[in-house]
Protein backbone atom coordinates (compact mmCIF):
# COMPACT_ATOMS: atom_id res chain seq x y z
CA UNK A 1 0.00 0.00 0.00
CA UNK A 2 1.28 3.44 -0.85
CA UNK A 3 2.71 5.69 1.77
CA UNK A 4 0.23 8.48 2.39
CA UNK A 5 1.96 10.90 4.74
CA UNK A 6 4.64 12.87 2.94
CA UNK A 7 6.67 15.94 3.67
CA UNK A 8 5.81 18.63 1.13
CA UNK A 9 7.95 21.45 2.42
CA UNK A 10 9.72 22.67 5.52
CA UNK A 11 10.96 25.98 6.89
CA UNK A 12 13.67 26.52 9.48
CA UNK A 13 14.00 30.17 10.37
CA UNK A 14 17.52 31.47 10.08
CA UNK A 15 19.54 34.25 11.65
CA UNK A 16 17.58 37.46 11.92
CA UNK A 17 14.18 35.78 11.93
CA UNK A 18 11.39 36.09 9.39
CA UNK A 19 8.21 38.13 9.21
CA UNK A 20 6.10 35.12 8.38
CA UNK A 21 6.28 31.48 7.39
CA UNK A 22 4.74 30.80 4.04
CA UNK A 23 4.07 27.70 1.98
CA UNK A 24 3.41 28.45 -1.67
CA UNK A 25 2.38 26.39 -4.69
CA UNK A 26 1.04 23.62 -2.47
CA UNK A 27 0.40 20.57 -4.66
CA UNK A 28 -3.24 19.61 -5.11
CA UNK A 29 -2.60 15.88 -5.03
CA UNK A 30 -3.34 15.10 -1.39
CA UNK A 31 -6.54 14.83 0.63
CA UNK A 32 -5.54 16.60 3.84
CA UNK A 33 -2.71 18.85 4.98
CA UNK A 34 -0.98 18.97 8.33
CA UNK A 35 1.45 21.61 9.55
CA UNK A 36 3.60 21.05 12.62
CA UNK A 37 4.86 24.39 13.87
CA UNK A 38 7.42 25.20 16.53
CA UNK A 39 7.36 28.95 16.91
CA UNK A 40 8.67 31.85 18.91
CA UNK A 41 7.91 35.54 18.48
CA UNK A 42 10.83 37.94 18.94
CA UNK A 43 8.40 40.51 20.38
CA UNK A 44 5.62 40.28 22.91
CA UNK A 45 3.05 38.63 20.65
CA UNK A 46 1.28 35.62 22.08
CA UNK A 47 -0.55 34.62 18.93
CA UNK A 48 -0.27 33.90 15.26
CA UNK A 49 -2.75 34.37 12.45
CA UNK A 50 -3.12 32.31 9.29
CA UNK A 51 -4.04 33.44 5.80
CA UNK A 52 -5.07 31.07 3.02
CA UNK A 53 -4.36 32.05 -0.57
CA UNK A 54 -3.27 35.46 0.77
CA UNK A 55 -6.75 36.08 2.13
CA UNK A 56 -7.52 37.09 5.70
CA UNK A 57 -11.27 37.21 5.09
CA UNK A 58 -14.10 34.79 5.85
CA UNK A 59 -12.46 33.03 8.77
CA UNK A 60 -14.47 31.90 11.80
CA UNK A 61 -13.44 29.93 14.85
CA UNK A 62 -14.71 28.47 18.08
CA UNK A 63 -11.93 28.03 20.61
CA UNK A 64 -11.20 27.17 24.14
CA UNK A 65 -8.23 28.61 25.87
CA UNK A 66 -6.43 28.04 29.16
CA UNK A 67 -3.60 30.00 30.72
CA UNK A 68 -2.60 27.92 33.71
CA UNK A 69 -5.23 29.33 36.02
CA UNK A 70 -8.55 29.60 34.15
CA UNK A 71 -10.31 28.34 31.03
CA UNK A 72 -12.39 30.28 28.54
CA UNK A 73 -14.31 29.61 25.34
CA UNK A 74 -15.22 32.13 22.68
CA UNK A 75 -16.23 32.69 19.09
CA UNK A 76 -14.10 34.53 16.57
CA UNK A 77 -14.82 35.89 13.13
CA UNK A 78 -11.40 36.91 11.82
CA UNK A 79 -8.10 35.32 10.87
CA UNK A 80 -6.25 36.51 13.95
CA UNK A 81 -5.29 34.58 17.08
CA UNK A 82 -5.61 31.10 15.63
CA UNK A 83 -2.79 29.64 17.73
CA UNK A 84 -0.14 30.67 20.22
CA UNK A 85 3.59 31.37 20.08
CA UNK A 86 6.14 31.61 22.81
CA UNK A 87 7.47 35.15 22.97
CA UNK A 88 10.31 37.17 24.42
CA UNK A 89 8.74 37.31 27.86
CA UNK A 90 8.67 33.52 28.19
CA UNK A 91 11.55 31.23 29.10
CA UNK A 92 14.47 31.59 26.70
CA UNK A 93 14.99 28.96 24.02
CA UNK A 94 11.43 27.73 24.47
CA UNK A 95 9.20 27.31 21.45
CA UNK A 96 5.52 26.57 21.01
CA UNK A 97 4.07 23.32 19.70
CA UNK A 98 1.23 23.53 17.20
CA UNK A 99 -0.60 21.11 14.95
CA UNK A 100 -2.76 22.49 12.15
CA UNK A 101 -4.91 19.88 10.39
CA UNK A 102 -6.84 20.86 7.26
CA UNK A 103 -9.27 18.32 5.81
CA UNK A 104 -10.24 18.20 2.14
CA UNK A 105 -8.19 21.28 1.28
CA UNK A 106 -8.82 20.93 -2.47
CA UNK A 107 -12.60 20.62 -2.22
CA UNK A 108 -15.01 23.15 -3.68
CA UNK A 109 -16.73 23.49 -0.32
CA UNK A 110 -15.74 25.58 2.68
CA UNK A 111 -12.54 24.45 4.41
CA UNK A 112 -12.82 23.25 7.98
CA UNK A 113 -9.70 22.70 10.02
CA UNK A 114 -8.48 22.30 13.57
CA UNK A 115 -5.55 23.72 15.51
CA UNK A 116 -4.05 22.45 18.75
CA UNK A 117 -1.50 24.91 20.05
CA UNK A 118 0.45 25.27 23.29
CA UNK A 119 3.23 27.27 24.84
CA UNK A 120 5.30 26.31 27.83
CA UNK A 121 6.99 28.61 30.26
CA UNK A 122 8.97 28.17 33.45
CA UNK A 123 6.39 30.28 35.26
CA UNK A 124 2.77 30.01 36.28
CA UNK A 125 1.36 31.28 32.98
CA UNK A 126 1.43 29.32 29.76
CA UNK A 127 -1.21 28.88 27.09
CA UNK A 128 -3.13 26.03 25.57
CA UNK A 129 -5.59 26.66 22.75
CA UNK A 130 -7.82 24.19 20.93
CA UNK A 131 -9.65 25.59 17.92
CA UNK A 132 -12.21 24.48 15.37
CA UNK A 133 -12.04 26.78 12.38
CA UNK A 134 -13.63 27.40 9.02
CA UNK A 135 -12.50 29.29 5.97
CA UNK A 136 -15.67 30.00 3.98
CA UNK A 137 -14.20 29.90 0.52
CA UNK A 138 -14.66 27.45 -2.33
CA UNK A 139 -11.13 27.78 -3.74
CA UNK A 140 -8.59 25.04 -3.19
CA UNK A 141 -5.87 26.03 -0.75
CA UNK A 142 -2.57 26.57 -2.54
CA UNK A 143 -0.90 29.04 -0.21
CA UNK A 144 -0.65 29.16 3.59
CA UNK A 145 0.92 32.04 5.47
CA UNK A 146 1.50 32.02 9.24
CA UNK A 147 2.01 35.47 10.74
CA UNK A 148 3.16 36.17 14.32
CA UNK A 149 1.16 38.82 16.16
CA UNK A 150 4.01 40.65 17.86
CA UNK A 151 7.15 40.95 15.81
CA UNK A 152 8.76 38.22 13.71
CA UNK A 153 9.42 34.50 14.00
CA UNK A 154 12.66 33.91 15.89
CA UNK A 155 15.61 31.94 14.60
CA UNK A 156 15.14 28.18 15.00
CA UNK A 157 11.38 28.36 14.60
CA UNK A 158 10.35 25.50 12.31
CA UNK A 159 7.32 24.50 10.29
CA UNK A 160 6.74 21.27 8.38
CA UNK A 161 3.96 20.85 5.85
CA UNK A 162 2.78 17.29 5.25
CA UNK A 163 0.38 15.95 2.67
CA UNK A 164 -1.93 13.09 3.58
CA UNK A 165 -3.67 11.11 0.88
CA UNK A 166 -6.60 8.73 1.16
CA UNK A 167 -6.20 7.53 -2.40
Amino acid at each position, binding site marked *: *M*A*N*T*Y*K*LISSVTVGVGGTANIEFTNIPQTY*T*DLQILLSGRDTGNGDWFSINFNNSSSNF*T*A*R*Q*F*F*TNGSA*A*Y*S*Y*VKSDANEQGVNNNTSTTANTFSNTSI*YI*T*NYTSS*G*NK*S*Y*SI*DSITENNASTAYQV*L*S*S*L*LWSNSNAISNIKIIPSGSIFAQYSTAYL*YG*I*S*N*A
Partner: protein
Amino acid sequence: MASTYEKIQSSIVSNGTTITVDFTNISQAYTDIIIVGNLGCTKHSNRAPIRINNDTGSSYSTTYLRGNGSSVLASGDSNITSGFMFDNIAIPTSLNGNCILIFNNYSDTNTYKTFLCRHGSTSQGTAVSVNTWRSTSAISSIQIVAGSGGEPGTNYWLVDSTFTLYGILKA
Protein backbone atom coordinates in the same frame (compact mmCIF):
# COMPACT_ATOMS: atom_id res chain seq x y z
CA MET B 1 8.60 10.96 7.82
CA ALA B 2 9.29 7.28 7.37
CA SER B 3 6.87 5.26 5.31
CA THR B 4 4.81 4.25 8.30
CA TYR B 5 1.60 6.16 7.73
CA GLU B 6 -0.76 4.40 5.35
CA LYS B 7 -4.40 4.53 4.48
CA ILE B 8 -6.23 1.38 5.50
CA GLN B 9 -9.82 2.22 4.57
CA SER B 10 -11.90 5.25 3.75
CA SER B 11 -15.61 5.94 3.74
CA ILE B 12 -17.49 8.71 1.97
CA VAL B 13 -21.13 8.97 2.94
CA SER B 14 -23.04 8.70 -0.33
CA ASN B 15 -26.66 8.62 0.81
CA GLY B 16 -28.81 10.40 3.34
CA THR B 17 -29.65 7.31 5.37
CA THR B 18 -26.26 6.40 6.82
CA ILE B 19 -26.41 6.13 10.60
CA THR B 20 -23.18 4.20 11.20
CA VAL B 21 -19.80 4.41 9.54
CA ASP B 22 -18.20 1.03 10.02
CA PHE B 23 -14.56 0.11 9.56
CA THR B 24 -14.35 -3.66 9.54
CA ASN B 25 -11.64 -6.30 9.24
CA ILE B 26 -9.03 -3.78 10.32
CA SER B 27 -5.55 -5.02 9.56
CA GLN B 28 -3.53 -5.94 12.64
CA ALA B 29 -0.27 -5.04 10.96
CA TYR B 30 0.15 -1.57 12.45
CA THR B 31 1.06 -0.17 15.85
CA ASP B 32 -1.47 2.67 16.08
CA ILE B 33 -4.45 3.69 14.01
CA ILE B 34 -5.98 7.10 13.35
CA ILE B 35 -9.36 8.07 11.93
CA VAL B 36 -9.73 11.51 10.37
CA GLY B 37 -13.22 12.79 9.63
CA ASN B 38 -14.79 15.79 7.95
CA LEU B 39 -18.41 15.54 8.94
CA GLY B 40 -21.87 16.82 9.61
CA CYS B 41 -25.23 15.35 10.60
CA THR B 42 -28.82 15.97 9.63
CA LYS B 43 -29.65 17.10 13.20
CA HIS B 44 -27.92 19.15 15.87
CA SER B 45 -27.85 16.17 18.19
CA ASN B 46 -24.93 15.48 20.46
CA ARG B 47 -23.03 12.42 21.63
CA ALA B 48 -21.82 10.52 18.58
CA PRO B 49 -21.15 7.02 19.92
CA ILE B 50 -17.95 5.18 19.04
CA ARG B 51 -18.05 1.43 19.47
CA ILE B 52 -15.33 -1.13 19.05
CA ASN B 53 -15.79 -4.64 17.72
CA ASN B 54 -19.59 -4.07 17.86
CA ASP B 55 -19.44 -4.25 21.66
CA THR B 56 -22.65 -2.72 23.06
CA GLY B 57 -21.99 -3.77 26.66
CA SER B 58 -21.25 -1.32 29.49
CA SER B 59 -17.55 -1.56 28.72
CA TYR B 60 -16.69 2.08 28.09
CA SER B 61 -15.89 5.23 30.01
CA THR B 62 -15.31 8.77 28.79
CA THR B 63 -13.90 12.06 30.03
CA TYR B 64 -14.13 15.21 28.01
CA LEU B 65 -13.31 18.90 27.92
CA ARG B 66 -15.27 21.16 25.61
CA GLY B 67 -15.72 24.83 24.81
CA ASN B 68 -18.90 25.89 23.07
CA GLY B 69 -17.97 29.49 22.41
CA SER B 70 -19.17 30.86 25.71
CA SER B 71 -18.19 28.40 28.43
CA VAL B 72 -15.84 25.51 29.12
CA LEU B 73 -17.07 22.27 30.63
CA ALA B 74 -15.24 19.17 31.81
CA SER B 75 -17.19 16.03 32.61
CA GLY B 76 -17.31 12.32 32.02
CA ASP B 77 -19.22 9.09 32.42
CA SER B 78 -18.47 5.49 33.28
CA ASN B 79 -19.89 2.04 32.57
CA ILE B 80 -21.53 3.25 29.38
CA THR B 81 -22.27 1.38 26.19
CA SER B 82 -19.92 3.32 23.91
CA GLY B 83 -17.24 5.94 23.86
CA PHE B 84 -18.25 9.34 22.57
CA MET B 85 -17.27 12.32 20.59
CA PHE B 86 -19.41 15.46 20.53
CA ASP B 87 -20.42 14.85 24.13
CA ASN B 88 -22.32 17.91 25.38
CA ILE B 89 -21.60 19.72 22.16
CA ALA B 90 -23.84 19.72 19.11
CA ILE B 91 -22.85 17.97 15.92
CA PRO B 92 -22.85 20.50 13.06
CA THR B 93 -25.54 20.30 10.39
CA SER B 94 -23.11 21.37 7.68
CA LEU B 95 -19.80 19.81 6.69
CA ASN B 96 -17.73 21.98 9.00
CA GLY B 97 -17.09 19.32 11.62
CA ASN B 98 -13.74 17.63 12.06
CA CYS B 99 -12.53 14.72 14.12
CA ILE B 100 -9.21 13.02 14.70
CA LEU B 101 -9.45 9.75 16.65
CA ILE B 102 -6.23 8.13 17.85
CA PHE B 103 -6.08 4.50 18.98
CA ASN B 104 -2.68 3.57 20.40
CA ASN B 105 -1.56 -0.08 20.56
CA TYR B 106 -4.88 -1.15 19.10
CA SER B 107 -3.78 -4.73 18.48
CA ASP B 108 -2.36 -5.31 21.96
CA THR B 109 -4.09 -8.24 23.69
CA ASN B 110 -2.84 -7.48 27.20
CA THR B 111 -4.28 -4.04 27.86
CA TYR B 112 -7.55 -2.16 27.72
CA LYS B 113 -7.80 0.32 24.83
CA THR B 114 -7.76 4.04 25.46
CA PHE B 115 -8.47 6.35 22.55
CA LEU B 116 -8.28 10.10 22.15
CA CYS B 117 -10.90 12.05 20.20
CA ARG B 118 -10.18 15.60 19.08
CA HIS B 119 -13.31 16.99 17.48
CA GLY B 120 -15.45 20.04 16.94
CA SER B 121 -16.80 22.56 14.50
CA THR B 122 -16.61 26.26 14.04
CA SER B 123 -20.39 26.50 14.41
CA GLN B 124 -20.80 24.52 17.64
CA GLY B 125 -17.59 24.22 19.61
CA THR B 126 -14.28 22.50 20.21
CA ALA B 127 -13.66 19.46 22.34
CA VAL B 128 -11.33 16.67 23.26
CA SER B 129 -12.37 13.41 24.87
CA VAL B 130 -10.52 10.42 26.23
CA ASN B 131 -12.33 7.11 26.12
CA THR B 132 -11.49 3.66 27.40
CA TRP B 133 -12.83 0.38 26.14
CA ARG B 134 -12.33 -2.19 28.88
CA SER B 135 -11.33 -5.12 26.75
CA THR B 136 -8.05 -6.81 26.00
CA SER B 137 -9.22 -7.87 22.56
CA ALA B 138 -7.46 -6.42 19.57
CA ILE B 139 -9.50 -3.81 17.76
CA SER B 140 -10.73 -5.26 14.48
CA SER B 141 -13.70 -3.00 13.80
CA ILE B 142 -14.81 0.51 14.75
CA GLN B 143 -18.33 1.90 14.46
CA ILE B 144 -18.96 5.66 14.45
CA VAL B 145 -22.63 6.47 14.95
CA ALA B 146 -24.51 9.65 14.14
CA GLY B 147 -25.78 10.31 17.65
CA SER B 148 -29.36 11.26 18.41
CA GLY B 149 -28.78 12.63 21.89
CA GLY B 150 -30.94 15.60 22.77
CA GLU B 151 -33.25 15.35 19.79
CA PRO B 152 -35.97 12.86 18.91
CA GLY B 153 -35.82 10.70 15.83
CA THR B 154 -33.00 9.27 13.84
CA ASN B 155 -29.91 11.22 12.97
CA TYR B 156 -27.88 10.58 9.82
CA TRP B 157 -24.42 11.50 8.61
CA LEU B 158 -24.55 14.17 5.95
CA VAL B 159 -23.83 13.15 2.38
CA ASP B 160 -20.14 13.75 1.56
CA SER B 161 -19.01 13.30 5.13
CA THR B 162 -15.63 11.59 4.89
CA PHE B 163 -13.87 9.26 7.28
CA THR B 164 -10.45 7.75 6.61
CA LEU B 165 -8.65 5.13 8.69
CA TYR B 166 -4.85 5.28 8.67
CA GLY B 167 -2.31 2.85 10.11
CA ILE B 168 0.94 3.90 11.75
CA LEU B 169 3.71 1.37 12.01
CA LYS B 170 6.61 1.60 14.43
CA ALA B 171 8.61 -1.19 12.80
